[in-house]
């Protein structure tokens, strides 16, 4: 538990530090923005490289799913239609060759690219 005087001191410290950060010159702020954009671009490049092996993995996944659906279908007639639809949807996403890495990390790229509202 902090004493009231300490809380007040820390509040003033934060205020002073925020003022210093807020007073950064435009050129520095621009360089920071460029650095962030560069990081996002590099992350995107990495994701694109990952995309290269996604079609092969997707093809293998589709085969596995088709076998799974085909095998379970006749054996388990009571499988609800929505469950089969979900499997087919997953197969469709895999077959599309889309960048799964990017989908999975969408929140991260939003946080990296935007302001405090994104964490």
């Amino acid at each position: 538990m902090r004493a009231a005087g300490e809380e007040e001191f820390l509040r003033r410290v934060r205020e002073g530090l925020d003022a210093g950060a807020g007073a950064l010159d435009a050129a520095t702020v621009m360089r920071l923005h460029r650095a962030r954009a560069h990081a996002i671009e590099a992350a995107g490049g990495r994701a694109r490289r990952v995309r290269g092996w996604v079609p092969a993995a997707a093809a293998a996944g589709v085969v596995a799913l088709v076998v799974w659906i085909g095998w379970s279908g006749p054996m388990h007639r009571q499988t609800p239609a929505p469950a089969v639809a979900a499997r087919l949807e997953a197969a469709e996403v895999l077959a599309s060759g889309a960048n799964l890495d990017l989908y999975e990390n969408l929140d991260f790229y939003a946080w990296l690219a935007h302001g405090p509202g994104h964490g």
Partner: protein
Amino acid sequence: MAGVERRALRMAEFAVGDRDQALDLVQDAMMRLAGRYADRPAAQWPPLFHRILQNRIRDWRRRERLRRRLHAWWDGSPGGDPDEAQGDPMDRLPDPRGATPLKEIARAGAIAALEHALRALPPRQQQAFLLRVWEGLGVAQTARALGCSEGSVKTHYARALRTLRSRLEEYRP
């Protein structure tokens, strides 16, 4: 990230004493975070970023120490590590109020004094204090960022707080 980057830059600048170097360190930390940790849970991104940045700062300090030693050896001068310098670093800093005695800029003077006092803190105390107070990291997160124990974080923080309060006493309203 936009909310974190300015504070990160200032923290790195306090640590290395140079804005260009600090910008390079922050950019490097951003690149590494984006390249390696995008798949981590959202709550981990800010502390992870600071952990990476602190590692970059530590690496920079090691390189600087080595560079200074090599330079000293080459020149035949004693060289020196500011971290190991004798005496109170505050005594070597100019009084930030000296050039600006007007009451109208008292606040600016207080901010300058705060920044001078922070720069004069030993590196671990400085970064522990900033991570806890400014970045709002918990003791455990700060310990992970600095690569030390939670007990060390508490000690660094307490010492930094005591020093800063003492140094900035005269700026109290």
